[in-house]
């Protein structure tokens, strides 16, 4: 089975600081999205069961070579990196066109995997857009994937119910982080990853035109006002009093 895993380079959220309510993104390292790493892990499992091959796709405006090494060490066989200044702050539509063009470039794939949302923006729309561009069936919020002959048996987890779906490849899925625990690559795997091929292409080289963005404009991005007073409670007795006062039922 040939599997492509789309992985988004995202700023390390734990290192973002706020200055005057504005996020400071300079010097924040770029990492692989946490849910995307779970997507890679199920891909590695399916690859091992079907003697398959995994290509990682990444699209962004910065250096992607360092970030993708972790994915190559974690079991991907090769990488296609789509690097272009136009991808700086790109909306989901442009990212989707870039990734769909990437999939076409690497040749037929049976399975295309995404995280259910990126850890930074979490819009959860890119998998659906790519599926439409490629004209393939999709399933979101997937909790498990099992290969049954020529068919993929997929468990989709919704708020109130779970669906067991039968889908014939090629298909695209977005997975939940709970699908698999991502591995921490061994030193040997990290050394081996250096030899795995990573191709870099621009949007022009992939034939993605300038009209591919869907015009979502960001007016502002600010930390929300909290307006909470952070009153220090001096003693355990006082804590008990406050809990009794604030408990909706009056605190027993």
């Amino acid at each position, binding site marked *: 089975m040939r599997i492509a895993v789309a992985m988004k380079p995202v700023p390390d959220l734990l290192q973002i600081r706020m200055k005057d309510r504005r996020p400071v993104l300079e010097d924040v390292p770029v990492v692989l999205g946490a849910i995307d790493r779970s997507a890679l892990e199920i891909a590695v499992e399916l690859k091992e069961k079907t003697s398959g091959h995994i290509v990682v796709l990444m699209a962004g405006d910065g250096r992607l070579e360092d970030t993708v090494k972790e994915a190559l060490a974690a079991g991907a066989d090769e990488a296609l990196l789509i690097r272009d200044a136009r991808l700086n702050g790109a909306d989901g539509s442009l990212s989707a066109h870039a990734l769909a063009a990437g999939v076409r470039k690497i040749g037929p794939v049976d399975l295309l995997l995404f995280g259910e949302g990126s850890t930074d923006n979490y819009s959860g*729309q890119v998998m*659906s857009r790519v599926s*439409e561009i490629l004209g393939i069936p999709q399933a*979101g919020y997937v909790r498990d994937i099992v290969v049954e002959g020529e068919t993929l048996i997929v468990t989709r987890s*919704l708020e109130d119910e779970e669906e067991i779906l039968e889908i014939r490849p090629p298909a695209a899925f977005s997975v939940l982080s709970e699908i698999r625990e991502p591995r921490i690559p061994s030193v040997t795997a990290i050394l081996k990853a250096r030899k795995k091929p990573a191709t870099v292409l621009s949007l022009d080289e992939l034939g993605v035109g300038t009209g591919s963005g869907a015009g*979502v404009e960001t*007016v502002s991005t600010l930390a929300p006002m909290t307006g909470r007073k952070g009153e220090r409670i001096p003693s355990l007795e006082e804590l008990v009093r406050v809990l009794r006062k604030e408990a909706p039922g009056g605190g027993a």
Partner: protein
Amino acid sequence: MTEFLAVAWKAGEVPELLGAAGTLGGGDETALLFLGGDEEARQAAARWGALHRIPGIETRLADTGSVAGALAGAQKALFAPVVLLPSTRRGKETAGRLAQILGAGVLTDVHRMERGEGGAICCHRYALGGAAVSVQRIGTAVQVIALDPGSFEAAPERGPGPVNELSVPLPEGSVVLREARPRVRDTVDIAAADCLVAVGLGLDRKEDLALVERLARAVGGEIACSKPVATDRKWLPEDRIIGLSGKKCRPALAVLLGISGQVQFTVGIRDAKTILSVNTDENAAIMTLSDYVFIADLREILPELAGKMDAGPG
């Protein structure tokens, strides 16, 4: 002609979708497309007025690609440039494909909308994992906006109206639904709780959970947690997770024990009326998000706190 097309999978989603359209000036003329079955559609129409349905779609909902195709047909038939749908998992998955078919921009998890310059719809949604709120506008002729459930006021009922069957093609799909089953889940819904006692990694002994439970009982609260307590330590079920990958909760009182306040957590609790935090670290991020803070080691204070709260007032 109407500006808004509200798409609901379940009758319970209708009031908020119409309410959200109402805040932008969409009144009774807001078109409603209901994806449930015939009987459910009739019941919804009795309360919410004229609605559209696409015959047969209710058996095909698992095939989001087909549904998106049919919704695109409905949007064109009804000439409504702004499609509103719930930002549930189903809604979000469908929204992206619908937007791609329509050449539209899409925003999901929108928790507030207002009119900006030139009547443009300004959508508020969390960004950077919940650390910030982005205000965004869609610039395309058709817009798809998925609304965070529980964030908008419900509209009043519109009175009875007819059910109109739309004749739009439902594209052939290739997704077969083998089985649908209710999720095995906790009977407690922390998103609906009036009071929550949430634990984070600062609670480092599993046996102390019993004390937390006593405290929760004393304040009439349910137990909740940050993500790693459920997914890494597996001390509590995943239904108890507060935050970006769990539930967004709005209790009257949230008692946070040993929670540092990473943005992925705080996005799920910042709408609580009152937040009280107990933490050893007075520089923890959660302190700036709390109404009350108590600096203490949970190991030391939990037995006494649970005992004193058990004892009741006086």
